[in-house]
C-alpha cells in the first residue's frame, strides 16, 4: 500500500519526536498519517527506548535495530538504522548474538541466554534495554513489511544482509521465567498501573517486570491506550483477536493466555478465543474478520508456513477503510513488540494457560497445526459429496452426516462420558462443519477435518468443567511400569457377562487421562488410522503411537483384576 497514502514530510508538527530520533520524518510514519494517534504511540516508544539516554548507547541500540531488520528481511529498516556503530567489540558481540536469537527465534530464548549475557558483563538494566530495543525493531519491521515505504531520500541503499545467519537452535528449554531480577513495585499511584487496573482489571506481569524502566512502561501504556483501546475504527474485540492470532503464530503462550482471559471481560467466551487460536477460519466471526485475520497473521514474527506477504487488497474488498487497515497493521506490530518483550523477559502468564505452545508447534510441516487442519492429501472417499455440498447442494450433506455420525458420536461419547451431551455436541459439530465447508480445501480427508472439529469442540466443553486437563500436555518421559503382571484367563470373555465387560471397559476408558483417552477412542473404538488420528490431533505419528500404547497399558491395568487367571497367579513374576 506504499503508493496509496501520500507522504508529506514537510508537515513535521506532529512528528517532532521522529525528527528528534531520525533527523527527518521517515516515510514509514508518513504512510500512517491518517492515524495520528498511532504515530504518536510509535513516537512515544521510539523516544523512550531509543532516544532517551539509558544504559545502552544509542549506537549499540542502532546495531540491535539493524540486526532485527536483517533478521526480518526489512531493507527499509536496515537503511533507516544504517548509520550506527557499536564500540565495545567483544562484549557487544554477546549482546548482538542474543539480539539475533531473540529476533529470529524468540520461542527458543531461555534463562540460559540471559545468564550468558550476565556472564558477559551485562546487568539486568542493560539486558532490559536490549530486549526493549529488539522488540521495538520487531514493531518497526512489521510496519515496514506491511506498508512497504519507499526508501527515504538520502539514506544509503542497504547492502546485502550483513547480520550473521543463525542456525536454527536445536534445544528447546522450558525454563521458567522471569529472567530478570524483580524490581521494586511502583507506588499504587503509578499512572500506568491505574490504567491497567481500570482497563484490564489487573496489572499484567509483563509490565511489572519492566519496572527498571518505568518511563518505558508509561510509553507502552500510552501505546495500548492509543492503539488497542479506541473503538472508532476497528472494534476492541477485533483488535484483541489480532493479538491472539499473532501471539499464537509466535507461539506465545503468555499472550494467548492473558488476552483470552481479557476477552472474557469483553463478553467473548474462552472457547471462542481458543477457536481463533486454533483456526480462526472456523471461529464464529464474520467473513470480513476472517479475511482480516488471514492477512494480519502474515505479519507475525514467525508466520509459520506462510510465504505470501501482507496484502491490503482483500481487506479493501471486504470494505475495510484505509485507517482501519492501518490500525490492524499497527495492532499486529504492537503485538509483535509485546510478544518479543515477553520472550526476552520470560514473563509468566497471569492466568493458567489453556494452550501451552511446545516444541511440537514449531514444526507444522511434520504434522498440521492442531485441529481443523486440512493440510495433508490422501484420497478422500467423501470428496465427491463434499464438492456437491460446496456447490450448494445442502441435501448432499445428509449423506456425510449419515456416513460419519456414528464415528463422531463415538469419539464424543468417549470423550465426554455422557451420551446426551455427546448427541448434542455431535449435532453441533455437523452444523459447524456445514457452516464452514466452503473453506474446506480437500487437502486432508473430510473425515479428518470433521474429527478435528469434534475433538476441538469436545475438549473445549471438557475444559469448562476440568480446566486443568489438556490434550496439549507434554509427553511423559517417565516410564510406565505395568504393575498387574499375572496371566489372564485364556478366554476372558467367559469370565464376565458381555454387559459387565462392556461396563468395565467403558469405565476404564472414561478414567483414562484425556490425552490418552482420545487416542484410544480414535484408534481402537473408531478404527481411525494412526496417520489420520495424528492429523486430526495435530500430533506426530510417534506421539500418537506412544499415547495409544500408554492408554492401552493403563486400560489393561484397570481391567486386569477382573480377568487374571486365579489358579496360575505367579507372585514372583516381575519386570527385569
Amino acid at each position: 500500500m506504499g503508493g496509496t497514502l501520500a507522504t508529506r514530510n514537510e508537515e513535521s508538527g506532529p512528528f517532532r519526536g521522529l525528527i528528534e530520533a531520525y533527523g527527518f520524518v521517515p516515510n514509514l510514519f508518513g504512510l500512517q498519517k491518517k492515524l495520528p494517534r498511532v504515530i504518536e504511540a510509535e513516537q512515544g516508544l521510539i523516544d523512550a527506548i531509543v532516544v532517551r539516554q539509558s544504559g545502552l548507547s544509542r549506537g549499540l541500540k542502532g546495531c540491535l535495530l539493524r540486526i532485527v531488520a536483517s533478521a526480518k528481511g526489512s531493507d527499509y529498516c536496515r537503511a533507516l538504522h544504517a548509520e550506527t556503530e557499536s564500540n565495545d567489540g567483544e562484549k557487544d558481540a554477546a549482546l548482538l548474538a542474543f539480539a539475533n536469537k531473540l529476533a529470529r527465534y524468540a520461542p527458543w530464548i531461555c534463562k540460559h541466554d540471559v545468564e550468558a549475557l550476565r556472564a558477559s558483563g551485562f546487568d539486568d538494566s542493560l539486558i532490559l534495554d536490549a530486549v526493549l530495543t529488539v522488540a521495538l525493531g520487531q514493531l518497526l519491521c512489521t510496519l515496514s513489511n506491511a506498508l512497504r515505504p519507499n526508501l527515504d531520500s538520502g539514506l544509503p541503499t542497504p547492502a546485502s544482509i550483513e547480520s550473521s545467519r543463525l542456525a536454527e537452535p536445536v534445544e528447546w528449554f522450558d525454563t521458567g521465567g522471569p529472567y530478570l531480577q524483580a524490581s521494586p513495585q511502583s507506588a499504587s499511584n503509578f499512572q500506568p498501573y491505574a490504567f491497567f487496573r481500570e482497563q484490564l482489571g489487573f496489572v499484567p506481569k509483563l509490565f511489572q517486570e519492566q519496572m527498571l524502566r518505568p518511563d518505558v512502561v508509561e510509553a507502552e501504556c500510552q501505546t495500548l491506550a492509543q492503539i488497542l483501546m479506541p473503538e472508532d475504527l476497528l472494534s476492541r474485540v477485533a483488535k484483541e483477536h489480532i493479538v491472539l492470532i499473532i501471539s499464537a503464530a509466535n507461539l506465545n503462550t503468555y499472550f494467548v493466555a492473558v488476552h483470552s482471559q481479557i476477552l472474557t471481560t469483553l463478553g467473548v467466551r474462552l472457547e471462542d478465543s481458543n477457536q481463533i487460536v486454533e483456526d480462526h477460519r472456523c471461529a464464529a466471526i464474520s467473513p470480513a474478520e476472517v479475511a482480516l485475520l488471514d492477512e494480519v497473521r502474515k505479519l507475525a514474527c514467525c508466520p509459520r508456513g506462510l510465504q505470501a506477504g501482507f496484502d491490503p487488497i482483500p481487506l479493501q474488498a471486504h470494505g475495510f477503510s484505509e485507517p482501519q487497515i492501518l490500525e490492524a497493521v499497527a495492532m499486529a506490530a504492537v503485538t509483535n513488540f509485546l510478544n518479543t518483550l515477553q520472550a526476552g523477559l520470560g514473563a509468566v502468564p497471569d492466568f493458567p494457560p489453556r494452550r501451552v505452545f511446545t516444541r511440537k508447534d514449531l514444526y507444522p510441516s511434520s504434522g498440521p497445526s492442531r485441529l481443523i487442519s486440512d493440510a495433508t492429501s490422501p484420497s478422500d472417499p467423501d470428496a465427491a459429496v463434499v464438492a456437491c455440498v460446496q456447490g450448494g447442494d445442502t441435501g448432499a450433506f445428509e449423506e456425510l452426516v449419515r456416513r460419519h455420525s456414528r464415528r463422531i458420536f463415538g469419539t464424543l461419547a468417549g470423550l465426554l462420558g455422557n451420551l446426551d451431551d455427546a448427541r448434542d455436541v455431535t449435532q453441533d459439530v455437523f452444523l459447524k462443519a456445514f457452516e464452514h465447508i466452503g473453506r474446506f480445501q480437500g487437502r486432508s480427508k473430510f473425515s479428518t477435518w470433521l474429527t478435528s472439529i469434534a475433538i476441538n469442540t469436545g475438549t473445549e466443553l471438557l475444559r469448562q468443567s476440568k480446566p486443568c486437563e489438556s490434550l496439549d500436555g507434554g509427553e511423559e518421559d517417565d516410564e510406565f511400569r505395568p504393575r498387574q503382571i499375572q496371566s489372564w484367563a485364556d478366554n476372558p470373555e467367559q469370565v464376565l457377562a458381555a454387559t459387565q465387560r462392556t461396563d468395565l471397559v467403558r469405565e476404564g476408558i472414561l478414567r483414562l487421562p484425556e490425552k490418552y483417552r482420545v487416542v484410544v477412542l480414535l484408534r481402537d473404538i473408531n478404527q481411525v488410522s494412526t496417520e489420520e488420528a495424528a492429523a486430526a490431533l495435530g500430533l506426530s505419528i510417534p506421539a500418537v503411537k506412544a499415547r495409544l500404547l500408554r492408554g492401552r497399558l493403563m486400560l489393561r491395568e484397570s481391567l486386569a483384576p477382573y480377568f487374571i487367571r486365579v489358579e496360575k497367579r505367579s507372585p514372583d513374576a516381575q519386570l527385569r
Partner: protein
Amino acid sequence: MLSCAEFLAEFGDYLEEAASPEVRARLEEHLHECKTCQVIVDSTRKTIRFVTDCDSFTLTADQVEPFVKDVMDRIREKKP
C-alpha cells in the same frame, strides 16, 4: 537382549504388526525368554479386543437415521 523396559517402549508397533523385521526379531527374542512380557503382550491384546468390541460409545443402527434427520432439520432451520 532387550530389557523389559526397552521391550515395553517398543512393543506398540509389534501389537499392530507394524514393527520392522529387525525390531520384531529383537522383540521376539526378548519375548521368548521373558514370561512377564509374554503376559503383558497377551493381556494387552485381550484389552484391545475388548475395547474394539465395546459398543458403549456408538449410536445404534436404528438411532442413525433419526439423528441424521435432526441434524438436517437444524441446518435447514438456520439456512436463510
